[in-house]
């Protein structure tokens, strides 16, 4: 029974828990066992929650006493290390916060706990979410469960690898320039960046405050919707949190899956994201996805967003500028690392602490951001980047006048090899072209599987919706997922190699690649 529990989709497991057929202790233990078996190789987790079984038992006792619990109560969840968690270290992948245990829970974490979900632990990430591969984690990279020599995406590679390898049915991520959607693409999983302000940023260790957004990471669209329903909504602790009534995203996902078609949906293919930079096999899967949507009754049109050509440049000015300011809080005074020698001033201590505590990518971006904000350069760089942001919003407005949803590949290639882009920051930055525009504009986006590339590795589709219209992602995403599952005989992650077999034999099964082409 234990091995089967980890293979269930989150909503299926939650159904068994609610029906009393499986206890939270059993479900939690099954996932802890899976972590113990495979995480030595994967390194998706930085910390495993020692209190998980006790917390699961408490949920079981409440359920046994007849208490009406949330529909996800007792289900295990993995939490990206960017989020503050009482009782578990929260490092954001950095040495400067090594061992730091926050005095409060991030709002999304508090809401998970209130709904009775059981935290399994904290997942690995690029340091302060700066990266697209998890190779910038101060604690070593996470590996892609589809091929251990490849990256799981980033910055949220740990959460994506955890759900892809059945270590967790649910996980939380954060997406500043694609850190939920790109890992979903390269691990064959589902991830959603909500509308900016849809989920509270309170307790999320800030990277770039005008771009950061916390969201769900799962294997199915419905599971993401269920998690989004739990974590979303207004939070007075975050002044940028949106005070509005959101529809049930789970209801939207269920409607989409039940409809089984896309009739009446206008879908826009973004010309600028369907171009030279997209690998041939990714493009082939994308054209097939367009055909699938057309066959399902969607009206597909081409839209043009000419300013997207400048989005990477604008992003790599705005993000470092905001990050250089946000990361000033790591000053060696109130929390985190302190490196000091007798006789030094507090300023010397700050410099030595930040030198020792930050990794190379963090230093690079802080220095770049400091440069962009310097007198004499501010208007030319930061000011211009903010204008590009306006142009990108206008492009989206025009595109959404023609289409209900926009689509593109979620990442330009399948997972690249560990080390392949580590020494070339610009190559890593350009990789984010498909996902960055949504963050600059604040609109919601989803990454979901659309097949396998020539190398047998997952390829992701990106859906983008207008501001506040997150439910469109879930309705259409669930319909597309159902149509693809019908073709493949199951969702894509069911084709993922069994990790222990892969580790022992080296050949991770060629049979998995055929069905999803």
């Amino acid at each position, binding site marked *: 029974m234990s091995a089967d529990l980890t293979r269930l989709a989150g909503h299926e497991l939650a159904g068994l828990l609610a029906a009393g057929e499986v206890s939270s202790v059993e479900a939690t233990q099954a996932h802890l066992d899976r972590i113990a078996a495979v995480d030595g190789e994967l390194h998706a987790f930085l910390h495993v929650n020692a209190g998980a079984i006790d917390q699961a038992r408490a949920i079981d006792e409440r359920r046994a006493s007849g208490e009406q619990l949330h529909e996800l109560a007792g289900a295990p969840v993995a939490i990206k290390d960017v989020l503050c968690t009482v009782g578990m270290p929260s490092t954001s992948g950095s040495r400067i916060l090594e061992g*730091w245990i926050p*005095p*409060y829970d991030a709002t999304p974490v508090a809401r998970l706990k209130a709904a009775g979900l059981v935290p399994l632990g904290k997942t690995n990430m690029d340091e302060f979410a700066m990266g697209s591969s998890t190779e910038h984690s101060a604690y070593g990279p996470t590996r892609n469960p589809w091929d251990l020599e490849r990256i799981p995406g980033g910055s949220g590679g740990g959460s994506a690898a955890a759900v892809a390898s059945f270590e967790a049915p649910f996980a939380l991520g954060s997406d500043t320039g694609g850190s939920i959607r790109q890992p979903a693409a390269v691990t064959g999983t589902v991830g959603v960046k909500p509308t*900016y*302000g849809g989920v509270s940023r309170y307790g999320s260790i800030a990277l770039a405050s*005008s771009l950061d957004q916390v969201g769900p990471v799962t294997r199915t669209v419905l599971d993401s919707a269920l998690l989004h329903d739990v974590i979303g909504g207004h939070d*007075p602790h975050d002044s*940028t949190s949106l005070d509005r009534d959101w529809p049930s995203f789970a209801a939207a996902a269920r409607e989409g899956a039940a409809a089984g078609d896309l009739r009446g949906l206008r879908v826009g293919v973004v010309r600028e994201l369907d171009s030279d930079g997209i690998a041939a096999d990714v493009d082939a899967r994308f054209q097939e996805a367009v055909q699938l949507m057309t066959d399902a009754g969607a009206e597909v049109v081409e839209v043009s967003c000419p*300013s997207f050509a*400048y989005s*990477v*440049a*604008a992003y790599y*000015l705005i993000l470092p500028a905001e990050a*250089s300011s946000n990361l000033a809080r790591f*000053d*060696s*005074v*109130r*929390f*985190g*690392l*302190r490196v*000091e020698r007798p006789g*030094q*001033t*507090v*300023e*010397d*201590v*700050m*410099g030595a602490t*930040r*030198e020792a505590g930050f990794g190379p990518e963090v*230093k*690079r971006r*802080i*220095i*770049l951001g*400091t*440069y962009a904000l*310097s007198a004499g350069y501010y208007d030319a*760089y930061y000011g*211009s*980047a*903010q*204008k*590009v*942001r*306006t*142009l990108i*919003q206008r492009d989206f407005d025009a595109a959404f006048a023609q289409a209900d949803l926009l689509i593109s590949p979620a990442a330009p290639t399948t997972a690249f090899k560990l080390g392949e882009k580590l020494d070339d*920051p*610009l190559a890593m*930055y350009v990789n984010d072209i498909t996902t960055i525009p949504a963050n*600059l*504009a*604040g*609109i919601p986006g989803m990454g979901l599987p659309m097949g396998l590339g020539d190398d047998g590795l997952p390829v992701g589709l990106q859906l983008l919706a207008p*501001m506040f219209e997150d439910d469109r992602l879930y309705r259409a995403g669930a319909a597309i997922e159902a149509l693809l599952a019908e073709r493949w005989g199951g969702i894509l992650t069911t084709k993922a190699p069994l990790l222990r077999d892969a580790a022992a034999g080296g050949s991770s099964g060629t049979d998995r690649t055929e069905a999803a082409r």
Partner: protein
Amino acid sequence: MSEITREEVQHLAGLARIALTDDEVTSLTSELSKIVDAIAEVREVAGPDVPATSHPVPMANVMRDDEVGETLTREQVFAGAPSHDGERFRVSAILGEEQ
């Protein structure tokens, strides 16, 4: 090619309070020049007529009710501090001898 010099990187590192090593200054000088070249194109696109966007959803003066809320206890605040005396964070000298 952007004109970022070693001295400029050292100055930025001082502003950012990061005591970079000489090797780091060397690599950052070269990397930053390349990165700035790649992103300098933002200067070309938008004219003076395009307003800047700082935030995806415009908001102004988000206020909460003026009521006492929950706060952290002193113990919670100091639990993560590198050094404290139970009432205050402890740091080394603010001013050096030459100041």
